[in-house]
């Protein structure tokens, strides 16, 4: 080949760009680090896992002859004299959305090389995430004390408990691991590992601020899944 066109020269936009990228026989996902592309692939697989849980929940809920427990009152909280429906879940939703916001800002300040701001925002995100898990633990405790089990509950269809523990448990596990990763990332940022491109102890890959964005993708995904759980499990 006499005239080797470099891959970066002819990046067309839109549909033509899609075909070119996929057929370029070297690197389909231009302009993103591999770690980010791989995180997206992982999240795609995770999407299918959560979707299977939610579809399974749909199936058992549609197939049961017993009435489904009224989530609005099951998840109500006593405040003073009144019973406010879904209050705890609403607060958890706002906490998770707030943590997504601080995460997005952490990514932004990371790219701007504001080390202190990035680390602070990562830690705030981790604290909000831990608060979310704590409230979930409270919710589980409350429901278990009221007699909810994976095989039955006092209010109706026994499939309610199975769906509830599976779906919220799996989501809570995701949040917990996210908190762990956030703390590790905050430490890396604070000690300057990303600025100095210091190799990580596990993979040996050089530190870079794209890592914060990749971490952010995972965290936003956890928030994204909650949007669907909130709609289908709690509101429906």
């Amino acid at each position, binding site marked *: 080949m006499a005239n080797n066109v470099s891959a970066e020269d002819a990046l067309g936009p839109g549909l033509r760009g899609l075909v070119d990228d996929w057929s370029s026989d070297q690197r389909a996902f231009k302009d993103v680090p591999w770690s980010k592309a791989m995180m997206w692939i992982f999240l795609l697989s995770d999407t299918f896992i959560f979707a299977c849980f939610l579809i399974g929940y749909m199936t058992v809920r549609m197939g049961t002859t017993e009435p489904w427990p009224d989530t609005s009152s099951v998840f109500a909280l006593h405040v003073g004299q009144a019973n406010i429906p879904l209050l705890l879940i609403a607060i958890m939703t706002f906490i998770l959305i707030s943590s997504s*916001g601080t995460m997005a800002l952490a990514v932004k300040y990371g790219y701007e090389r504001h080390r202190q701001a990035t680390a602070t925002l990562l830690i705030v995100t981790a604290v909000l995430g831990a608060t979310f898990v704590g409230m979930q633990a409270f919710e589980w405790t409350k429901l278990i004390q009221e007699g909810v089990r994976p095989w039955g509950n006092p209010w109706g269809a026994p499939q309610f408990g199975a769906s509830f523990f599976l779906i919220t448990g799996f989501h809570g596990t995701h949040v917990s691991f996210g908190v762990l990763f956030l703390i590790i990332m905050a430490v890396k940022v604070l000690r300057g590992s990303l600025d100095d491109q210091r190799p990580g102890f596990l993979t040996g890959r050089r530190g870079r601020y794209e890592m914060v964005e990749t971490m952010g993708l995972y965290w936003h995904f956890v928030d994204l899944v909650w949007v669907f759980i909130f709609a289908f499990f709690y509101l429906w």
Partner: protein
Amino acid sequence: MEHAEQQQQHPIGTYLWVWGLLFVLSVLSYMVDYSGLEGFIKWFFIVLFMWLKAGLIVAFFMHMAWERLAIISAVLVPPAVLAVLVGLMAVEANHTLLTRLTFFIE
């Protein structure tokens, strides 16, 4: 030699706007429950606010709006097959329900 990778740098206003909108949409979806709407209109609003929130998170917080079409389609097209699974399982669930009503309910 590293590829010149595009960094996702966007004005802070974008994030704050999305953040605010997510709060408003969450309040609205909570209001769907609080207001005691029933039937089709309830489901319509639940699903509407859900997709709006999901779209905002993916497009702006996860930067999908600024990515190339190659990665957008690699991530967003495959989940569409889940619609088939939903359809199949809905048929299955109706069959289960019908069988239970026919044989197990006196």
